[in-house]
């Protein structure tokens, strides 16, 4: 990657976020993440039940989301907190997905602080529900990562204005 922080492209920023997600999962839960940038054929699209959202504020803002199936977020949080998966409350699961997106965006923020791509972070928001759908305006540059952790599924997306 270029050493000139002002020449970082959208794709490079996206790669940094992907790397940050791996680091966060590894550091916080000890789990290894496999990341694919093309949707695998067997991806359980309809089983996503938790999403965390964070807006990266700058002249051209971006929205970062991490979505997970219930077993995935339960497992990750269980490793992170040391609690048994079925002891985790709904509030903890929502808080966990917020923390995940907060940590990933925060890690990259510190690396871009003195570049023209520096951003601020708003407080994260979690959404939980079955048949969860998310709609953003057309025309945003979109990046998707399909993440498998311990056989479980997460998706990270970045929407750039």
């Amino acid at each position, binding site marked *: 990657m270029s050493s000139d922080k002002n020449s970082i492209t959208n794709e490079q920023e996206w790669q940094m976020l992907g790397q940050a997600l791996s680091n966060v999962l590894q550091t916080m839960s000890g789990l290894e993440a496999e990341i694919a940038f093309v949707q695998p054929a067997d991806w359980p699209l309809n089983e996503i039940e938790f999403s965390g959202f964070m807006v990266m504020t700058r002249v*051209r803002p971006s929205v970062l989301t991490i979505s997970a199936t219930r077993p995935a977020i339960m497992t990750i949080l269980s490793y992170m907190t040391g609690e048994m998966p079925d002891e985790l409350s709904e509030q903890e699961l929502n808080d966990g997905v917020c923390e995940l997106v907060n940590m990933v965006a925060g890690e990259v923020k510190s690396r871009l602080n003195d570049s023209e791509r520096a951003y601020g972070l708003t407080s994260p928001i979690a959404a939980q529900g079955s048949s969860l759908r998310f709609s953003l305006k*057309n025309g945003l*540059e979109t990046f998707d990562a399909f993440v498998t952790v311990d056989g479980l599924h997460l998706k990270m997306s970045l929407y750039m*204005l």
Partner: protein
Amino acid sequence: MSKRVLIVDDSPIVHHLLRKTLEAAGHEVCGDAKNGREGVDLYGKLKPDVVFMDVTMPLMDGIEAVKTIRASDPAAQIIMLTAMGDEQIMTEANQAGVTVFLKKPFDDYKIISALAKLV
């Protein structure tokens, strides 16, 4: 008098609403662009009488698009239509060369009155 209008906005709703209002008033929507870059390209190809331009859009924002259009056609008639209409944005828009600045929300009267103000 009927005008040929180019709409540049990333919201499909704004395209829909403006088209309905303009066509009902006898104007022609000759082009739809989803961002500033498309707007600049279509302006060059279509040479519309008037452009309705949003501010915040992907790829190229409205202020930048107005500057680019103005540089190629100093007589361009551009109506800026935006949800954010504070003094700083209005100043930037005026400096870029916007002809009329409109704040959302809007209704038919606001749109047709703005068009009537243009030469």
